[in-house]
């Protein structure tokens, strides 16, 4: 369960990050018509209900859906897809805010010193790294604490040997609560909280090391 939770959420967040940061950079460094509209779409996405995401992903991957041939329903891949959809808006929006918030003098200095566009972008990204780390943690938080959509697309499957296939900590908590096993549910809840705190601590530590390097 812990493995499935971490595997699914970390994969989804990694993919979201690879997808989001370039978007945030492009949007942070350019003006184009409709930019405000794109921003508001991303911000709306942050509040998009997860069970609706689950339903939409289910329709997509179900045997009857457009991706049906890939046979993804009730797999980790389908869960990653739904968490990717959920984590991308917060990561993009918070990264964009962090990039936009970098002092204009930093950009100017980099440009004056003869930096190319890429150099300038790298300098700004370095300045914004705490904000971007916050963005990734926010996305991770949304992904790993999610239960509605992964239950729908993943199916909460564990093998007869007790090895979890698509059961995450959150869906296990839901299952235990459904059965009235509140004690077990609480223990799993504590494990989940500990896991989130650990990942946060690791990310923050990595960020600090980056400063002293």
């Amino acid at each position: 369960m812990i493995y499935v939770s971490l595997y699914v959420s970390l994969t989804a967040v990694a993919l979201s990050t690879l997808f989001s940061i370039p978007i945030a950079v492009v949007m942070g460094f350019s003006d184009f018509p409709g930019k405000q509209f794109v921003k508001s779409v991303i911000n709306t996405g942050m509040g998009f209900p997860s069970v609706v995401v689950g339903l939409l992903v289910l329709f997509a991957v179900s045997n009857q859906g457009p991706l049906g041939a890939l046979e993804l329903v009730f797999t980790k891949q389908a869960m990653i897809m739904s968490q990717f959809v959920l984590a991308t808006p917060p990561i993009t929006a918070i990264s964009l805010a962090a990039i936009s918030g970098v002092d204009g003098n930093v950009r100017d200095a980099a440009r004056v010193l003869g930096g190319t566009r890429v150099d300038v972008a790298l300098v700004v990204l370095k300045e914004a790294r705490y904000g971007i780390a916050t963005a990734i943690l926010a996305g991770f938080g949304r992904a790993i604490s999610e239960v509605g959509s992964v239950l729908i697309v993943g199916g909460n499957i564990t093998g007869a040997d007790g090895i979890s296939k698509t059961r995450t900590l959150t869906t296990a908590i839901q299952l235990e609560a459904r059965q009235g096993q509140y004690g077990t549910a609480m223990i799993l809840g504590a494990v989940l909280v500990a896991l989130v705190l650990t990942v946060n601590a690791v990310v923050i530590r990595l960020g600090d090391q980056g400063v002293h390097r």
Partner: protein
Amino acid sequence: MPIHRRRFVAALGAGAVASTAGCAQFGGSQEETGAAVAGETLTLTTTTSTYDTGLLDEIHADFEEMYGVTVDAVAQGTGAALESARNGDSDVVMVHARGLEDEFMRNGYGINRRDLMFNDFVIVGPESDPAGIQGMESATEALTTIADAEAPFVSRGDNSGTHTKELNLWEAAGTEPGGDWYQEIGAGMGEALNNANQQGAYTLSDRGTFISQRSEVDLTILVQGPIEDGPEILANPYGIMAVNPGVHDNANYDLAMAYIGWITSPGTQDAISDYQMNGEQLFFPRAVSEDPDFQQYVPEGWSGNSTDG
């Protein structure tokens, strides 16, 4: 002629089940059916009661070992389990709502339905029994009494097999439930029992889930089902069906039939019979008999061309 045709298809299907069942008994030799299933995964959508009672976990290891396969059991509730199967997202479906199963079969989504096992429903409530239904021999009378007293009643409200049975009971009682005392919670059996426990309400429960949760709640059985000589209307039969590979060609029909053959085999039926929780038997096998109850439906417009067999 239609009856004749149905018999023919039934015989064909029964033959298939018998040969896979035989296959199971002889240690899974694949030559008999020509179907290679080892290494594959069977997706079973099922109701929460077979899952939450721990029955499937208990018996599936045997099947997985015998065939070298894995079973992905998805517990959804009867309505959702059938819908997943209808969409081709599962290979075999195990549920307990005969009316919905028949519809699924008639529409051609399912094939080779077998009676699997049964248990029963019970009406549970607080020991104080505010509506005074204890000892009633008629489930419909008990429900009418609860409705007349406007005593709190928790309904699953989730299109599950238990919910379907509850609605059938209200209909049989000629009472349309409604009002503040009737609460649809849209959740599983365990949650319904917890909810009823919290507010001293009545609810309809399958005996298995109630037994497995009895120590957690202050509820008691007020109207018994047929296992304890209660009315037959509270019977809770489970059926199993393969997803029709003619409708969904990705359905793993060979493995589904191996599973149906295995779960209806004498050995597995004994294992189901032996499965206990808190010292009580939860499910009563029904597939093994001199005259197995085997249903097959002929899809509408089927030409009856036997060479397709």
